[in-house]
């Protein structure tokens, strides 16, 4: 291994440690707040189907199929053991 390669390897390792040192203590908090945002977004997208009037349903409607994969986990997190929607039978 040449000196340059060694330097590059050392730099990569140092960058990895620095990044981990920055990220890992707050990984949990960040992921949780991200999940809270996503949960709210799911509510906005599926609000019309849940009976909550949504003035922008024209736009959110086309997102429903995209987010359908996450729907099951979302309704479980929201404390609903079974799917609250008639049309979506995920479980």
């Amino acid at each position: 291994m040449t000196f340059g390669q060694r330097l590059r390897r050392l730099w990569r390792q140092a960058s990895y440690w620095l990044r981990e040192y920055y990220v890992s203590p707050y990984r949990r908090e960040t992921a949780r707040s991200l999940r809270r945002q996503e949960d709210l977004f799911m509510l906005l997208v599926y609000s019309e189907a849940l009976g909550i009037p949504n003035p922008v349903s024209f736009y959110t409607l086309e997102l429903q199929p995209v987010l359908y994969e996450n729907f099951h986990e979302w309704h479980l997190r929201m404390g609903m053991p079974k799917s609250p929607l008639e049309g979506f039978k995920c479980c």
Partner: protein
Amino acid sequence: MPAILLVIVGLLVFYLGWRFYSRFIADKIYRLAPGFKTPAHELEDGVDYVPTNRYVLWGHHFTSVAGAAPVVGPAIAVIWGWVPAFLWVILGTVFFAGVHDFGALWASVRHKGRSVGIFTEEIIGRRAKNVFTIVIFLTLLMVNAVFAVVIAKLMITVTSAVAPTWIVVGVAPIIGWLIYKKNAGLFWPTFAGIIILYVFIALGPDIPIHLPASVLGLAPGSQWIILLFIYCAVASLLPVWLLLQPRDYINGIQLVIALGIFYAAVFIYHPKVVAPAFNAHVPAGTPPLIPLLFVTIACGAISGFHGLVASGTSSKQLDKETDARFVGYLGAVGEGGLALVAILATTAGFATLHDWKAAYTTFAGGAIHSYVEGGARIIDGGLGLPHSIGANLLTVMLALFAATTMDTSVRLQRYIIQEWGQTYRIRPLTHPVTATLLAVGACMLLAFGAGGAAGTGGMIIWPLFGTTNQLLAALTLVVISILLLKYGRPVWYTILPMLFLLGMTVSALLYQLWGFYKKGNSFLVVMDLLILIASIWVVLEAGSAFWKARAETRAGAPAP
């Protein structure tokens, strides 16, 4: 007595403790298994449970447990002479803190990475878990009140450190914003943040900041305390990526730099220890060495707070069970190294014994000033850094640490209050703002209630803070011992430190109770009584759980 000798002996004892005692504990007592599937692998979710490189994990475990306490405690305790403080720090680290921190990490790994307060219910029972929550809350309350006063004192005595300390709070959100919102890499924001901090440390003497002599009848000390609590309340409510995360990060890096500078200065300058080995002429009003030494130095010798960090976050990220020895034991050793800095600065940072005595005229009175001035003198002598800049460097290190601990513990207190709100169905308590205001209000009540309008309660209650911290450590050792008993393993290595800590804590509480009563400080009498009741509760719980576990073991309960 050359200070270098203290460094060499201290580091040598730490090394021997790590090399032999921690290995003995790992092999014979905790019996770490390389093949054990840790919670980080078993429950890996990319959020809470993430296998992490042991060096990285040690880095943030150490910076999470390191705070202002391992500096302030020893700085106060050298009033009895350097030998007692030095011995308690090195022996406490090797035989108490190392075993405790390592044990909390191991026990948590064996309980799916849950926090020690939670698996206590499983090992001992619900009542013990309740004592745990109460003691944790009391410790956090004390931490906030004490550290607010420490920072306020620093901001008043070293006015040149005000700007560099607070510039970090200004720079951190910019770093957080660049990293999270602009996807900037880590190197340049880090580099710029550190450079700005050190430029302000260097410029500090030219831009001293004083608060007005009186605002609404409040002295500068009280104004600082109020400002600090406002800051803590805001910081604990802001998203973590915006302030706490970049601020902790910059803080960790500057700690490594400051420690490097200090130890390099000690080796180059090799100052002499001028403080007496045993101080036979302590100032009037100084409490007796036994038991007060063991509660005055909590962090740096043994601290219950470490158990919370070890079992709360570190255990969920441990890649292999055998890494527990590296992360837990060496985390305690790192804290001991920080306490050694404080002992060196406050015993070898003076030209003569006369100067030292002039600094230590009251118990807990001149400790912080001595640490700053003594440390700055050593840095000046070793590296030629002007005294004012050295003093700034050490003040910023201490103030940032105290502030980091404060806003983290206000956040933790808020979580506890919200949890109480949920458990007892008190809806307003579940709201983050109400819970934060309550947490901050309780701490301010303590800071001002203990010390009057000047808000100097923190320093009066420093040993009281130590007692709650040691009580927490004793409680964690009880849980580890009972777990060991259930597994059919030797328990003396955890039981003896626990008995010692409980004995010292209860005696210190009784001594202080009498002192507060004589002074007519009914607020502190009540606080002391509260902690004493919690201590007695811990003793009873420990006794009952121990006999029950022993009876079960003798009856032939299966051991894993």
